[in-house]
């Protein structure tokens, strides 16, 4: 289910004295099964762009085609599109609106007019996917969940609609390292096992470096870079310029290269970095310099 965006502009509060253009001539094509990181500093327009991808915003200037369907076309079934392109927001407290976990996850499938058996089946499946044990959590009160569990419940609520594309908007913000890892593992599994197209919106380069295959960088409403993750991340200075903090590994490798260390570009994780550094330090002749 490819998504195409052509010449998209967006103006916030259009037609009022507070009007402010936040997206400028966006062109983007997302293919089936891609795993994309959409990064940029805050107020770069990431969330706005994301919300065009599932017809929460309808273009007034430019076009958005979802599987060939123009979201601005009156005949397009927007509700259907929103079921196909799931959107998980940053704050779970804004998207959990029932009292128990089970009820909340059933919200979407119920609106899709599934039979009660099918709703039950989908809830079970969604809970399994995000790693919320059904027996423990089905009847659990939403308020009794931890931050990380709430986020997983929110993802499950969207998964139960059986989307083919999943947009995750800032879902790791504010979680501690352990909670973050749990969530990221879930996302990775969804992409790998379910072959879902995933668009991961974040300002944490660490999350993105760990997961995605392609990175789109947004700054002040414009796409300033788009390409394979390793290549985009290697352009460290540009990312720093717009106020993003590149992952430390990349920073270290970059600085080492500048100081004449023979380590390759495009190293993204700690273990790779370690073995590369060890390789350099184990070369004959190096040890003799130590004192």
């Amino acid at each position, binding site marked *: 289910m490819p998504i195409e965006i052509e010449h998209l502009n967006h103006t916030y509060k259009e037609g009022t004295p507070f009007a402010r253009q936040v997206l400028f001539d966006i062109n983007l094509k997302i293919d089936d099964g891609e795993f994309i990181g959409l990064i940029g*500093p*805050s*107020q770069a327009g990431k969330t706005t762009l994301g919300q065009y991808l599932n017809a929460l915003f309808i273009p007034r200037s430019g076009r958005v085609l979802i599987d060939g369907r123009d979201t601005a076309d009156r005949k397009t079934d927007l509700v259907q599109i929103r079921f196909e392109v799931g959107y998980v927001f940053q704050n779970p407290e804004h998207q959990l609106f029932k009292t128990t976990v089970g009820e909340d996850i059933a919200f979407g499938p119920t609106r899709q007019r599934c039979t009660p058996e099918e709703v039950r089946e989908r809830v079970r499946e969604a809970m399994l996917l995000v790693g919320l044990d059904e027996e423990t959590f089905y009847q659990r009160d939403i308020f*009794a969940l*931890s*931050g990380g569990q709430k986020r997983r419940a929110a993802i499950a609520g969207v998964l139960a609609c059986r989307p083919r594309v999943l947009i995750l908007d800032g879902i790791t*913000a*504010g*979680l*501690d*390292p*352990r*909670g973050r890892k749990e969530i990221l593992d879930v996302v990775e599994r969804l992409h790998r096992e379910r072959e879902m197209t995933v668009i991961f919106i974040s*300002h*944490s*380069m660490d999350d993105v470096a760990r997961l995605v295959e392609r990175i789109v960088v947004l700054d002040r409403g414009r796409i300033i870079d788009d390409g394979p993750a390793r290549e985009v991340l290697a352009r460290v200075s540009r990312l720093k310029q717009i*106020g*993003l*903090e590149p*992952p*430390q*590994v990349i*920073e*270290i490798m970059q*600085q*080492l290269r500048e*100081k*004449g*260390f023979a380590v390759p570009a495009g190293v993204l994780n*700690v273990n790779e*970095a*370690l073995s590369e*550094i*060890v390789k*350099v*330090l184990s070369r004959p002749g*190096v040890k003799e*310099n*130590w004192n």
Partner: protein
Amino acid sequence: MNLLVEFNNVFFSYQSASGKPVEALREITLQIGKGEFLSIIGRNGSGKSTLARHFNGLLTPTSGEVLVAGLSTSTGDRKQLLEIRKRVGMVFQNPDNQLVSSIVEEDVAFGPENLGIPPPEIRKRVNHALAALNMFKYRREPICHLSEGQKQLVAIAGALAMKPDCIVLDEPTAQLDPCSRKQVLESLKKLNRDEGIAIVFITHLMSEAVNFDRVVVMEQGEVKVDGLPEDIFSRVELLEKAGLDIPVAARLAVELRQRGFPVAPGILRVEELVNSLCQLK
């Protein structure tokens, strides 16, 4: 060391929703001196927020005592509590839920207004506080036009306008992007250096904690370690057990040392690691 805040064998427990008592703090003994630059780190649920709320008497110990400039937080005396709160400013995680007024300078004035300070003096303090946080040019902006990071700086300015000896910040950066995060940290460093205000910074990110002079690690309501950052971060196992992340530079340094490479001990930051490696090459 000139003592500012003292925790003497503090225990704290509360009733959970199901009615059974939960011990949130155990045997906390902690001394914080004037002008310290300290970080308290622990994962969610380790008791660090509960600890923060003991600094200014929002919570009082079940047993043991907390002294601020020699004054106990537990006496229940209103005047004494006000005196304590004047000395210890607090900043919370969500800037949206702690700002009272819709205009920047009006909000910063809220604290001094509560103290009954004469108007010209309030004006002076507000201008000073906003300038110290580089927010002076936003003084007449509506709060809702600011970014989350700027809102948090306003909250810090609000605490600063009380002329405190110490500011306690409870995960002030958890909701911020990296750029605003850095801004908040730099501002705090400046306040500490230029105004001599003690900073107690609560976080779950090691990459932030490395910037402080002293780090206290909490786990399950107890203080596990209390010391210099370079001593703490070399203890990878301990940190991992506490559910925390280790800065990449520190982790690489430890791993390289374990493999017999003579990398300098106590490395925390990228530059330190790079410099140390360059000497080996």
